[in-house]
């Protein structure tokens, strides 16, 4: 199968003790530029879904860079054959972030971009939560705490069948309140599913409140480790750091990997960032235009 352009150079095993993430040799300038351009365009798609009935803009913007990185550099997904049996799986468990996924699928050619203009129209299936009628979307989600168990089942079968597919499930941090995640992690660890990677979009917010103000999650790495997983903590907006982390998967043989990606809700548009009241956003066209200008001003490509 043909793949999305993936950096082809070798992986540096270097671990840096200075606290700074080293620039990754696999992430050459062209790839880095591609990632930044794609992220910008995906954020534009996300902001436009705030028109009409609105969408979960804040929750979507926090995971744009993660999804762009995964679909550009990590996941073996062929846009010409998204159901190929040897593909890697991405399950978006924080389903309300689906505008980010729609945007990525549009940018990699799985979803016709004009369909995003039919957001919330009944003549299409582009709505507030993922459904597998959308090409590239693996499963229904939106009810929180569901796709980690489902991903465990998929990873279990890949293991059973002896297939090398990798299974990534992205969960929200607030979503970790749901007990089913922890049930599934116990099973994943018991069955030593190191083909499973959980990515936590750690934007620090539940729907309405900062996580630490409501149901504190920290120390989060310790919790996952106690459940038998190996963890890494990384900036979810730093492509070099993401490359460094994802090239190390599995983080430990025989254990599920958990990548806690620290992110910013609303990332990319300063007036929307880190605000409890910008989870769901419904906006008028001129507001959206103003956010788009803000986005482009603060994310000028080529200013690395």
């Amino acid at each position, binding site marked *: 199968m043909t793949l999305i352009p993936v950096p082809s150079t070798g992986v540096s095993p270097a671990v840096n003790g200075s606290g700074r993430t080293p620039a990754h040799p696999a992430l050459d300038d062209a790839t880095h530029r591609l990632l930044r351009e794609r992220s910008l365009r995906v954020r534009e798609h996300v902001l436009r879904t705030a028109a009409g009935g609105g969408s979960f803009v804040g929750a979507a913007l926090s995971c744009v860079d993660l999804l762009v990185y995964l679909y550009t550099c990590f996941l073996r997904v062929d846009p010409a054959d998204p159901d190929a049996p040897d593909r890697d799986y991405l399950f978006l468990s924080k389903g309300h972030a689906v505008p980010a996924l729609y945007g990525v699928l549009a940018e990699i050619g799985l979803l016709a971009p004009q369909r995003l203009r039919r957001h919330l129209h009944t003549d299409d299936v582009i709505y507030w939560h993922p459904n597998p009628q959308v090409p590239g979307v693996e499963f229904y989600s939106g009810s929180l705490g569901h796709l980690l168990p*489902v991903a465990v*089942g998929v990873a*279990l079968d890949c293991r059973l069948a002896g297939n090398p597919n990798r299974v990534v499930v992205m969960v929200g941090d607030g979503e970790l309140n749901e007990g089913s995640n922890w049930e599934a992690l116990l099973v994943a660890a018991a069955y030593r599913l190191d083909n499973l990677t959980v990515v936590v979009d750690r934007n620090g917010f539940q729907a309405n409140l900062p996580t630490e103000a409501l149901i504190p999650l920290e120390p989060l790495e310790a919790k996952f480790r106690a459940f038998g997983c190996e963890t890494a903590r990384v900036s979810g907006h730093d492509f070099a750091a993401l490359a460094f982390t994802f090239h190390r998967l599995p983080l430990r043989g025989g254990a599920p990997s958990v990548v806690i990606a620290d992110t910013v809700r609303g990332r990319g548009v300063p007036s929307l960032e880190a605000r409890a009241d910008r989870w769901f956003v419904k906006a008028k066209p001129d507001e959206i235009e103003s956010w788009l200008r803000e986005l482009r001003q603060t994310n000028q490509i080529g200013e690395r």
Partner: protein
Amino acid sequence: MSPPSYADALLQAAQSDPRVVVLTAENRAAIRSLPDVLGPRFVDVGIAEQALVGIAAGLALRGRVPVCHALAAFLTMRAFEFVRTDVGLPRLPVKLVGGVPGILSDGNGPTHQALEDVALMRGIPGMVVFCPADEEDLAIGLPHVLASPQPAYIRHNGLRPAVSHSPDFALGRAEVLCEGEDVAILAYGPLVAQAWEATQRLQAAGRSARLLNMRTLAPVDEDAIVAAALETKLLVTVEDHFLTGGLYSIVAEVLVRNQIMAPVLPIAFPDRWFRAGLLHEVLVHESLTGSQIAAAVLARLGSVSGDR
């Protein structure tokens, strides 16, 4: 020759179909022989019904036919939304086997009494609901339920058969255990045996009784219900389930849909859980033995005959 056990029937299905994977939420009573023979195709997730169903959905996404075991009360209620959303919505061929449903929870008490499982499961579009009369009936129907591309709920029943069952099985077709014109008893699950005894007593009392073992409640044998309503004087529904949402409700729906008025005597649990105890004692306490059912039917037949 004794009929095959559930575990034998399931093993046979697993051996002839490599898609079959057996899962359990640490409930192994009915499948103790399987871990050794199925190896990695036997998966025990521990006491975690929600994860069980989600994991089964993931396996089914990859083309497997997962057969999941947990106690009926926890499988259908604790994990309900996972069944509805991860199995029902995408119509994945996950097969859910509920242990000790209905009256079979005997001494466990109300925490373990699944008396609304049929109502819940048949409320999910596309879900097959199979309620075998005993272990022989279960073994006869199992291959058909597993071969169906639809999700299914199986009300596990390991009781020894009181009657011999027809190997002729189809989803949505009731088994006629005896023909009759005065009364038609419609039953499913462990109470089929009691209903069978009731029909014998009714025949002895000079009444002609028809007995339908419904087998699947979704899809349901609508033709058999309509025929029973048109050809007999009284319909009797017998079930170890709440009055709401089970066979009595199904019969009501069928009769309304077909614009038929007919007298119906429901025998079920009306808005309460049953007194826990050994099965044979529970049957007596709850007036569910064959002779008690026959007496209730005779009393009602008297009033029905008097009305006409």
